[in-house]
Structure formats: C-alpha cells, structure tokens
C-alpha cells in the first residue's frame, strides 16, 4: 500500500491538473463565443458569393472556353488534399478525426492508382499525417503566429493553391475541415473546392427566377476574378468553422477532464483517509499491547 506521503502528493498533483483543465475550459468557452460570432459574421458574404457564382456559372457552364478553375482540367489523376487542423492539441478527437478522414480518402485514392498531394494547414494535422504520408505532403502552412484568423490568411492559402493549380500540379482539390454543429458535435467534412461543386438545383433556380444580368466587364473577366476569391472565401469559411470546432472540442474535452480529476480526487481522498485511520489504529494497538506487556 502506498504511504501517506505518496498519497498526499498524488492528490495535490491531481488537484493542480484539475485547476489547469478548469482554466483551459473557461478560456475555450470564451474563445468559442468569439469564434462562433466570427463564423456567423462571415456567413452573409459566403452566401452572397455563392449566389452570384451560381448565377454566372450557370450561364457559362457547358460553354467552350469556360475557365479551368470552374470546369476543371477534365482529368482526375492528381488530387490535392488541403487538410485544415488546429495548431494546438488537448482538444479531444478534433485533430485526429480530421486527419483520419483525410487519411482514409488518401488511402482510397492511392489504392485507385491516383497521385495524392497534401497541403497541411495547421501543425497538428501535419504531425499526424507525416507519419504515413511524409512523401505526399508538399507544403505546410503554419498559422501559429496569427492571433486571430483573418481573411488575408485564407487569401494567402487560396493564392498558393491557385498558383499550383495553374502550374498543372493537380486536377482536383478537396478541403478537409471540421464543421461546427454544436459544442459537443463537430463533423469532419470533405469538400471539393476545385472544380467547385455547385448545387444543381440552385443553379437552375437561379436561371429561372432571377432577371438577366448585365455584366461589367463581361462574364469571363468577372469569373476570372470571382473564382479565386470564391476559393479564398471557402477556405476562410473552413478556417472559421475549424476555429469554432476546435474551441468547442477543447471545451468539452476539458470539461470531462475536470470531471475525471474530481472523481479521482474523491477516490484518492477516501483511500488516504482509510490509510491514515488504519495507521492510527495500528499505532494505538502497538502502544496498548506494549503497556499491557509491562
């Protein structure tokens, strides 16, 4: 049986850990609120962007000479996986579930004889994926220095992706991130961003309900500007959703860690008290029997 001192030390250390997890939970809760607000504030832009894009794309689609960013290269030999994860750990299964989804997709693509390239956004995803796909990872984008996620980060990532696309380095790009559903539910999601998957019904509805637009400059030039920007918006949305999901995941992970620590302290305290009582009893018996022997 552990000595009293050992037990005392263990209880003290669990208490210290509990304080840390509790503090992390509170910090995550505060950050979550901010991240959620940011994600919500970004929604109108993405929605309008989708609407305009669907509208124009509906007209241009099928025509010869549509921009490659919209129509794709017509091949699907090389896939680029853009995996967005967090920069920090201690947030439950958040990072590993995104990485798992990306890994499954990568394995399936490799099994089908495709070439897979990976760009990691966030250090944690890189740490997990480099064990199996060290050769496939072509770039790592680190956002650790950023205090908040701004549109400029997303734009930078999108520019890198577009530059690689235009250099013919890949045919299809898929974005991996975690969709924020609620504090306890974050859904790892794969979204194809190049060529963009436009909801069919939406384009049709746009064609029938909306008036004929005049374009200034013409459609092609607008599309040429709109598509990279749409990509940046998609990445931005993914980053914001990810930020909210990360904090949500961390909050619930830290909540259960705090609860676990509480249970542990309770159990250890009972053991400690029992052991102490047993020691006292033992010492008393020794004294009494010693006195009797005299």
């Amino acid at each position, binding site marked *: 049986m552990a000595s009293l001192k050992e037990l005392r030390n263990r209880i003290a250390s669990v208490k210290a850990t509990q304080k840390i997890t509790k503090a992390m939970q509170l910090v995550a809760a505060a950050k979550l609120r901010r991240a959620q607000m*940011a994600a919500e*504030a*970004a929604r*109108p*832009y993405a929605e*309008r*962007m989708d609407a*305009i894009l669907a*509208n*124009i794309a509906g007209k241009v689609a099928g025509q010869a000479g549509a921009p490659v960013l919209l129509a794709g290269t017509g091949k699907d030999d090389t896939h680029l996986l853009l995996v967005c994860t967090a920069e920090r750990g201690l947030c439950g299964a958040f990072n590993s579930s995104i990485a798992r989804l990306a890994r499954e997709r990568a394995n399936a693509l490799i099994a089908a004889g495709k070439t897979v390239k990976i760009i990691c956004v966030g250090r944690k995803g890189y740490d997990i994926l480099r064990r199996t796909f060290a050769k496939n990872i072509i770039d790592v984008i680190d956002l650790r220095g950023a205090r908040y996620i*701004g*549109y400029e980060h*997303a734009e930078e990532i999108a520019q890198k992706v577009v530059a690689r696309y235009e250099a013919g380095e890949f045919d299809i790009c898929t974005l991996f991130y975690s969709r924020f559903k609620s504090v306890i539910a974050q859904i790892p999601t794969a979204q194809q961003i190049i060529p963009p998957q436009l909801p069919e019904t939406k384009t049709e509805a746009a064609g029938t309900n*909306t*008036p*004929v*637009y*005049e*374009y*200034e*400059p013409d459609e092609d*030039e*607008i599309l040429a*500007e*709109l598509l990279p*920007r749409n990509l*940046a*918006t998609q990445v*931005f949305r993914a980053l914001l959703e990810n930020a909210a999901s990360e904090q949500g995941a961390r909050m619930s992970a830290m909540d259960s860690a705090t609860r676990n620590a509480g249970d542990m302290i309770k159990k250890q305290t009972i053991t400690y008290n029992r052991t102490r009582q047993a020691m006292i009893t033992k010492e008393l018996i020794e004294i009494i029997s010693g006195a009797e022997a005299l």
Partner: protein
Amino acid sequence: MATFKFELVSPAKLLFSGEVDEVIVPGAEGEFTVLPMHAPVVSTLRPGILTVKAGADVKRLYVCGGFAEVNEKGLTILAEDATAAEDVNMTEFAASVSAYEAKLASAASDEARFKMAETLFQLKAVQAQLGGGGAAAH
C-alpha cells in the same frame, strides 16, 4: 422618394444593411450610380470611394476589390476591404501604395505590369481623393 435596400458585406462581417436613396459605386469600368429600380447588373470593383446617400446623410467609404450586384431586391456589395473614408489611416495607406509601387517594379510580365500600373493609378487617385477629403474635414 423611393429607397432601395443596400448591403455592404466584407468577408469578416456584414458592414451595412439598410434602405438608402443612392449609392455611387466605383465599378471596374467606371463609376456608376445606383438608384431605385436600377437594371440588374453584376460588376467588379476597383479600389475607390463608395458614396452612400440615405436622406441627408452621406457616407463615404473606401472599398478595395470585390463585386457589386444589383437585382430586384437591391444592391449588394461584396468588398474585400471596406473602411469609412475618415477612418483610413493615410500614413498606412501611403505605405501600402509605395509597397505596391515596389512590387510593380519587379512584375514578371508586361501584362502583369500593365494591370498593376492600372491598380496603382487607381490607388493613387483614391489617395488624392482621401487626402483632399481629410484636409477639408479638418
């Protein structure tokens, strides 16, 4: 007087939403004014000054890159960056203009250089406009 719905959205948030009388938009191919019942149009924006008139209230905003869409519901502007004209930090703006000038010098192709020169010209025009507006306000 009739009004129409105007929305100004940046990637980070919805900056303005409400009924206005008139908006002057810095379109890529020239400025145009949007009044109620304007014909549907989609246009890209150049860096410039966006003027919003609602009653006697006139607001000037600096917008940088984006899209304007006019439909039967009103005008929507998707701007990458939008700041109220009086809030633009002139020293920072001047710094970004000269940074752009430096970038222009190292442009790869003639075509890119032409495009960048055009943007630079627009930026400088904005700078002059803002500088003038700022001096008048003080």
